[in-house]
């Protein structure tokens, strides 16, 4: 019952981190590389500060825009704790990319609950292919902390069979002209991880 030809990348994090844009850029790269694409996330409600997830699935023919649990090939997590919320979508062979940054939920802000400790250690114990980076700091070094999503795309690109030139072409076309140079630098720094 497993359709092995479909690949899934799951982007997760917190509202306002640029997750939807990153998954849009990734989808466009895969479209240009010749794949069928389905992509899905949830809009609506005041998503600010809430959980955000975006499934991108590509292959020769994709039916479902949502992945089955256990089927995600790469989890790209923009916030440390959010990584754990989607563990059931992974399998032992999944790759995990984590932005090692924390955004406190209200209960932690109010001091009612602790922020879970040693998340990266936990992920490294359970998965072989893990990349942990300080994407926000790296983006700041490239010119603007808001480009953390581009840094994450750079790291994701290193897992992909699709040539780097497709990624950069899409970045150049989808981003405002004056932001392209810094975003390419941010992408490169992520790709080197």
């Amino acid at each position, binding site marked *: 019952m497993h359709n092995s030809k479909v690949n899934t990348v799951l982007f997760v994090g917190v509202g306002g981190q640029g997750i939807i844009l990153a998954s849009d850029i990734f989808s466009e790269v895969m479209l240009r590389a010749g794949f069928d694409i389905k992509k*899905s996330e949830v809009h*609506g409600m005041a998503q600010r500060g809430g959980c955000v997830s975006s499934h991108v699935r590509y292959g020769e023919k994709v039916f479902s825009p949502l992945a089955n649990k256990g089927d995600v090939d790469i989890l790209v997590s923009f916030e440390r704790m959010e990584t754990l919320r989607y563990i059931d979508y992974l399998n032992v062979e999944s790759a995990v990319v984590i932005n090692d940054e924390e955004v406190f939920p209200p209960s932690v802000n109010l001091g009612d609950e602790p922020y879970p400790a040693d998340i990266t250690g936990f992920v490294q114990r359970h998965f072989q292919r893990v990349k942990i980076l300080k994407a926000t700091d790296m983006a700041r070094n490239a010119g603007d902390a808001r480009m953390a999503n581009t840094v994450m795309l750079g790291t994701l690109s290193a897992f992909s069979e699709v040539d780097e030139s497709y990624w950069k072409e899409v970045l150049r076309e989808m981003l405002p002209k004056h932001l392209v140079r810094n975003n390419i630098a941010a992408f490169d720094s992520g790709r080197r991880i």
Partner: protein
Amino acid sequence: MNQLMSGNEAIARGAYEWGVTFAAAYPGTPSTEITQEFSRYDGVYAEWSPNEKIALEAAIGAALAGADAMAVMKHVGVNVAADPLFTVSYTGTNGGLVIVAADDPSMHSSQNEQDSRHYARAAKIPMLEPADSDEARRFIKAAFALSRRFDTPVFLRSTTRVSHSKSVVAPEEPDARRETRQYVKDPAKYVMVPGMARGRRVVVQERMSALRDFAESFAENVMELNGNEAGIITAGMTYNYAREACPDYSFLKLGMVHPLPEKMIREFASKVKKLYVVEELDPFIEEQVRAMGIEVTGKELFPYNNEFDPGIIERSITGKSRAFAVPDLPGLPDRPPNLCPGCPHRGLFYVLGKLGVFVTGDIGCYTLSFMKPLEGLDSCICMGASIGMAHGMSKTLGRGDAVVGVIGDSTFVHSGIASLLNLAYNRSNAVIVICDNRTTAMTGMQDHPGTGVTLQGQTTKKLDFEALARALGIDNVRVINPFDLKETRTVLKEELASDGPSLIVARGACALLKSKESPKKPPLMVDVDRCIGCKLCLDVGCPAISWRPFDSLPPGSTVSKRRRKQEGIALIDVSVCNGCGVCQQLCKPGAIVEVETHA
């Protein structure tokens, strides 16, 4: 060239390709972007109407005048539009008329999970349901073709997962301009008094019969035969989930979910040993298949509630889940959506929570203020319910128990005006607050009559809430700044004590609205040498403010206790704070200061 489009973008594209020239809607997740996207095409007229009933009536008028017109709404919007819906089925449409209804299984952004397919059956209107974006583009055109051919309104049903998923679309050039049908006066067709409605009722029955025949040959009802062991009847997004979960099964994929193609279903059932119906929400297809005398498995396996995914279908059939189980996974704090930093609702609902009154709420971002720590809202049923409920509660409880109804500006326009009139006419003591943030915030900043700008960017007459309230017969009309806690508390108390109905307009622009009405203010920060750790600022539940116990501060921190019992300090994330100043008004030692001032 192939493009990635959301289902909503694709519906707009298809409508444009067909030559639709008129669209009316009220914003509602997950349907909002359809009308927004459509409004940007050349040569079309599109509007935000005050509510879905008015949107449908406007679209009916445009269709009677000969245009191809659509009314777009979320599932609960169909309830509002139900009155004209059931009778336009009798009159027919002249031009094409399509009602796009977007359901929200799992209630991602809705107050209930109703299944719009029942409306198609109840109102005797055909309904098409696409499974992805390119189908959405094609099916809206098929819906208009059907509407013109059978002189009937047609439903296009979407769900959140169709509307908000992106998939590959092959756009086509717009059709050659279609001839506009002339309007002809025809009272027997358009004046639905009993004598004439009885005649049209027969026409409706004949039309449904003709549509049943049409369904048998409709090209979007597709049989995919793949062995005779098991077959699935399904429609819409669920097809994709089932197709992926059960690649070895045969499928009958219905593009038209009402009326059903009975002969086709019988033929499909005869070709498989085991027959399933897989559908989200209600057993709409299943019950009809069973009524045909066909043995079928459905809701005894598949859930009634929430949207599906491939895993749910696989698990329902096989009893097995492939979810990755990690035994030592730590428990995770929830991350509920929250009012934004600088939200004008925060100050108002902080005060309402502290006043201890019963607050009837409504549909909007402010509904989130029922949560800790604000706890300033006690009910939420539907658009406009706050005012009617506050009136009824106030009449029942009498003078001693205070009731406040709160409603957003756009929601007030949608369905609060007549309820406010009721308050004035039947005289209750309820206090109504319009949370006037100058936009339809929750669906993404749409204009409405109170903003004075139309969907297509025209400046227009701006609705004056205060003048309207006075005209309706409300004597006590006040305007407050909800960022000012003292003023908000004082005016609310005065109006709660006053006789007769009151209307308070709490006017403060949405924090996400980039306009002259919300000039950017410098962010605030905590002066750690002045913070006494009283935690009062945490009571407003602002995402920018966090509590740091002393033991969590980085080593080498020079922060010291100012009170013997102090356990930590509050911190403000200056990159998130927008300087609204609500927390500052609660800080007795004056530890919350402007970043610039301090530096």
